[in-house]
């Protein structure tokens, strides 16, 4: 039994770090622009599919990964200019609806380019699973967890410890005041979408060897990432990671100890519970701000 619990924990941490990565990207855009980008999962799907195609075309894996991250970052910036920027004065809800539209269009685009097939990438490091405390751990899981931790520390440093990070956060709290002290919210929003595109693509590439990739995988990722972000409090990068890991581990224990059929429902139940009991999230301090 302890073996089993251990195995479920590691399996949950793998899933959880996937959710955490998407949640991190969501929180970043939200922090900087006040927009909840529900097309975030699609960035991951397209980044992963691009990397797989480039890799299949014979480009060395590292180059293929960097290239596809850069391309998706550009896509993110392009979409911001094309769809978000013109509507920048609209209400938060309108912007969310725009990102839903973007997500559906991107999924359609991926369907046209890559079709309905399932694709996969080889694992980053060869070799079998590691055994920790009687539980098998896939080396790729460690890569994913590593990426989540790295991203978390970079984002934390940026938002909390640098002047620029504080400045972009200020742009959300009060646009006019930010403008008065020389911050251009439009430019900041552009960079935020570039960043979240890059982060989404990186997440997609890291998880491809474990989850495999289809044109429509972004949707479920987006939902789980959103739930993770809300659990964590939406504006806190640490909260996003905690929320993601918590959701993954809960799902894993639920599937392993209760019933695997209940697993997907759990995400929504947890989301509702958090919203009703603690709407500011586990780590969040949510003041008056635009969603």
């Amino acid at each position: 039994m302890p073996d089993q619990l251990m195995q479920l924990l590691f399996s949950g941490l793998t899933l959880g770090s996937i959710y955490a990565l998407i949640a991190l990207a969501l929180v970043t855009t939200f922090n900087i622009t006040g927009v909840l980008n529900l097309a975030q999962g699609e960035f991951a799907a397209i980044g992963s599919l691009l990397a797989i195609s480039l890799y299949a075309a014979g480009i060395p894996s590292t180059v293929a990964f960097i290239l596809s991250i850069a391309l998706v970052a550009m896509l993110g910036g392009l979409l911001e200019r094309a769809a978000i920027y013109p509507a920048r004065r609209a209400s938060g809800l309108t912007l969310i609806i725009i990102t839903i539209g973007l997500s559906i269009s991107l999924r359609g685009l991926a369907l046209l380019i890559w079709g309905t097939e399932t694709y996969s990438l080889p694992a980053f490091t060869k070799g079998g699973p590691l055994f920790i405390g009687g539980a098998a751990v896939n080396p790729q899981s460690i890569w994913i967890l590593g990426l989540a931790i790295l991203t978390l520390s970079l984002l934390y440093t940026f938002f909390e410890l640098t002047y620029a990070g504080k400045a972009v956060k200020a742009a959300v709290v009060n646009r006019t005041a930010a403008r008065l002290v020389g911050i251009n919210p439009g430019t900041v929003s552009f960079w935020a979408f570039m960043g979240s595109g890059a982060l989404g693509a990186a997440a997609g590439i890291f998880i491809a060897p474990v989850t495999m990739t289809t044109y429509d995988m972004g949707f479920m990722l987006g939902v789980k990432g959103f739930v993770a972000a809300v659990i964590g409090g939406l504006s806190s990068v640490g909260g996003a990671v905690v929320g993601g890991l918590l959701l993954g581990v809960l799902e894993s224990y639920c599937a392993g100890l209760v019933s695997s059929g209940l697993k997907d429902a759990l995400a929504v139940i947890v989301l509702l519970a958090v919203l009703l009991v603690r709407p500011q999230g586990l780590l969040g301090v949510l003041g008056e701000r635009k969603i």
Partner: protein
Amino acid sequence: MHKSLRITGLTLLTTLLLIIGALAGGCASSQNNSGSAGQAKEQAGEPYQLGAVIDISGNSSSLGVPERDTLLMLVEKLNRAGGINGHPVELTILDNKSEETEAVLAVKKLIEKDVLAVLGCSSSGPSMAMVNIVQNAKVPMVSMAAASSIVEPVSERQWVFKTAQSDIVTVKKIITYLKAQGLTRVAFLSMNNTYGDGGKAAFTAAAEENGIEIVVEEKFEASDKDMTPQLTKVKASGAQAAVVWAIPPSASIITKNFRDMGLSIPLIHSHGVGNQKFIELAQGAAEGVILPIGKLAVASQIPDSDPQKKVLESYIADYQAKYNTLPNSFGGYAWDAFNLVVAAIEKAGPDRAAIRDELEKNTSGFVGISGVFNMSPADHNGLGVDSMVLVEVKDGKWQLLE
């Protein structure tokens, strides 16, 4: 402050609703992959309308795509050779996106088009969803899916036939193997859908009859990314073998998880993994997997005396010439469905009831890709245990085991 929190909560709830709306919207707005082929040739005769509902996109697309390709190839070939008794065939292929509701909409559309018969679907759930519609409209339907409940009980399924080997046939093959190897305590894992449930029902019944004990029974979703939680139960149970009832990609993921966890008991899959994609996606983890499969996958290894050998080789040659890749058993199901219907129309003419009677009463010794079909009023699948062979995955290829 308190009020703003409430508003925030409300907005987040609205967002959740929007997401759910996006799911529905996303489904409705993705492309309707319909294609019709074969109208190029105008001949003396009025064209015969046939319809097909295939899982071209969605979770079962690895089944549906080779089926669509096979149908397109066959209809082109048939029309080039002059069609059915001088009538060209017009085949309308609709995509059901691997969903039950889409399948129902598609089959209604086809019936409105006055098709003589409907081919499809690729997987069991959507096929089951179409059964009532064709029963009421009295249109012959030939499914390419596995669950035996699609054609049983025949008294309520007079208009429905199917070409894929039933789960009962597959289960018999697996049970025989387990008994021969002396494996009596097994774990059973299945997808949470009609295909998985059909396999589970058939396996549970047959295991009980044959003194095999199922020590763990677990399910997983078609879209699941990690089945380690289910497999930890298998590991703890001391099962001597694991039987998995699934199709790729989830079948490939569970195989990867199985190897990653260092489980060393034999892993037996169903015929749902009978395509190269399964091996490809499992990335080496498929080595050593044992499964029952139609003879197509091992056509070059079966003896020349086998009645199917010639049909198999000609299908492989045609398919390779057109698509430059090997066909798989799912394409084979489509081959059988198409040719059974064409043979029936040839004799019965363009009349739905006559085609149904012809399919049921006069299909005997029909040599197809999935086996030799002998339909009867009691059996609308018509395949026996001899239609399958056991194979093992070796060096990324299917190796005949017997």
